[in-house]
């Protein structure tokens, strides 16, 4: 009986740890630098469960187009950064990219 109880406790503890780990990952800061253009996407109508296939697809396509336009705008605005990269050696480029992503290469974010 004791053995069974211990096993159950072990299972519960393991599950709790897994849940905590999943939550920690969820709370982790999103990669704002790489997907910064997504914050500029104009508001598109939300897809509802009751929408017909045609209406749903229309809304999804509107969202796709808005995302693409925001991405093009973002790329234009940041073109000089990409051009500057070519003036550096490959090692320097890697360093700059890591810095832009908020990582100085030391492993600490």
């Amino acid at each position: 009986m004791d053995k069974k109880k211990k096993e159950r406790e072990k299972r519960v503890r393991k599950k709790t740890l897994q849940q905590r780990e999943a939550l920690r990952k969820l709370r982790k800061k999103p990669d704002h630098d790489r997907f910064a253009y997504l914050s500029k996407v104009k508001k598109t109508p939300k897809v509802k469960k009751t929408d017909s296939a045609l209406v749903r697809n229309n809304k999804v396509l509107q969202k796709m187009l808005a995302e693409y336009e925001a991405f093009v705008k973002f790329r234009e605005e940041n073109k000089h950064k990409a051009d500057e990269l070519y003036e550096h050696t490959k090692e320097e480029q890697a360093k700059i990219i890591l810095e832009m992503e908020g990582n100085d290469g030391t492993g600490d974010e």
Partner: protein
Amino acid sequence: MEQEMSKEMTQAWFEENFFDVRKHKPKKGQVLAQFRAAAAFVDGWVKENVVTLLKDNMAGAESAHKVMRNMVGAVEEDAVKVLLEITEDLMAGVDVDTVLQKEYKMIVEYFYWTTRECVPTDDPHWQIITVVEPDDEQVKSKILLPDGSSS
């Protein structure tokens, strides 16, 4: 010169010298050639399938977008715009047959591995894209780490 080029560019010659990037890997000495042109999305089995996907499938937008990009060869912006136009027409009450008959304008682009000499220089539809290490048998990418090592 233009006449010479059009004479040379027969179907057989094209198939012998131009290799679609979707089916082939680059060989030594080949460059990436881009063909870009204005086109119309006209009636055919592809259009019929796209319309059916948009009309009846709950994940039709994503699938139809892939078809437009990978099979039709539409550029990213037009791949979405044409589909959006089709859905808007259907939502406005236009019947399927009329949509199938209607020509939707778009820009298509195709990429081929070929030798530099084969790419027409006096044709604005064609462009050579320089790739890193084009002489390698396969185009490879490396991620260089700040300490000089690579992955």
